[in-house]
């Protein structure tokens, strides 16, 4: 059976803030949907707090506090809930960390066919050139697309499920695959599957001639 939730080392990296934004997005999306993982995460973030409170001190310059106090009057309190721009159908499926990357609605994304019963919509993320971040929509019973890649592939199921060997991967679950994984996952025969995928693509496979260099890649 494969792991369907995040492992501790990756969770620590997310808590520490050292993950690249695309991978952090996959982790945050998973934690938003998976209650157990979310509960475990609070304890890991608390380690950050304990380490911070034990940290050494470096003196600030003399005017530092004064400069901050001067700014406080201009700072109103922040509302704790933000207005969401998404339509309600999208909001019921897409958790908060992912919403910012969706725009108006799932339907407003540019969906492209990627084989029988598979559609893909790439999500824009500035500065994440060596990553591919996309939503995948797979019809019931169809095979998930194969990605030939040399980096890691992170998958978070948003809706529906898929089966990978003897493991069922369902809403909120998180899977990491590397280049050696030759899997042939299949979307649930009744519900199909909507998921977030993040591919870590090494620089040497991409570039201005991306499509030409890699005719064998089925991106």
């Amino acid at each position, binding site marked *: 059976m494969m792991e369907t939730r995040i492992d*501790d080392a990756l969770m620590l990296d997310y808590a520490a803030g050292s993950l690249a*934004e695309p991978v952090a997005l996959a982790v945050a999306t998973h934690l938003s949907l998976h209650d157990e993982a979310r*509960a475990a995460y*609070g304890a890991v*973030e*608390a380690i950050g707090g*304990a380490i*911070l409170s034990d940290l050494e001190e*470096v003196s600030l310059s003399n005017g530092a506090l004064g400069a901050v106090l001067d700014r406080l009057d201009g700072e109103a309190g922040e509302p704790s809930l*933000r207005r969401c721009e998404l339509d309600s159908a999208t909001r019921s499926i897409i958790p908060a960390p992912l919403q910012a990357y969706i725009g108006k609605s799932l339907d407003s994304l540019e969906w492209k066919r990627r084989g029988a019963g598979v559609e893909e919509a790439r999500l824009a993320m500035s500065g994440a050139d060596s990553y591919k971040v996309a939503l995948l929509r797979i019809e019931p019973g169809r095979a998930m697309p194969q990605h030939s890649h040399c980096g890691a592939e992170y998958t978070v199921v948003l809706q529906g499920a898929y089966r990978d060997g003897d493991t069922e991967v369902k809403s909120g679950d998180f899977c990491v695959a590397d280049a050696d994984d030759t899997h042939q996952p299949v979307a649930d025969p009744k519900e199909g599957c909507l998921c977030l995928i993040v591919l870590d693509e090494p620089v040497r496979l991409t570039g201005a001639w991306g499509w030409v260099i890699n005719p064998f890649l089925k991106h």
Partner: protein
Amino acid sequence: MTILETTRIRPRSVTGTMPQQSAQRQLSATETDLRQLMSAIAIDRDKQAFARLFSHFAPKLKAYGMRAGADPQTAEEIAQEAMVAVWRKAASFNPEKASVSTWLFTIVRNKRIDMLRRESRPDLKEEDFLHLDQPAETQDETYEARETGSVLHSKIAALPPDQAEVVRKAFYEDKSHRAIAEELGLPLGTVKSRIRLALSRLKTHLADDE
């Protein structure tokens, strides 16, 4: 009644191992003290309380910035920006969910990502969870989060040095496991397994212990 008059020392106080305790600070800042300061800031917009919180945390926030690679001036800006964010967001601090230092850690971490990497951090939002019923295991962890004063600190202090080292580097230095492995001259798998071993020691009882 002022914050100072209502503050008292709890028996289980956080002493830590800070080498440069300020001589001017007369009270050791326990979690209770910090929570009272947060209340005063959130509810009364009390600047004196804010100044006390600043004097307690800002030097650590600056140290955090420098450990992550910022020069002293940038690190000081990170500390200042984080404290301004504390003022702005004080009303959203929830003592049921985390200690003051954990909450502050999340703020300074996000500022550090913003200012040093110029990226945004996909973050969990509280409103995502308002509708969830908290299972019993989660409540135990929240208890641990509140009691983070001595239990978690002593567990961290008790970590074997090789595990403590990788956990600290992972939290402070904005380095991937690969970078830590290269720096320490270790195989990547060793770094990952030390982190996992450390975390299994530090986590409180969870339903899904593996």
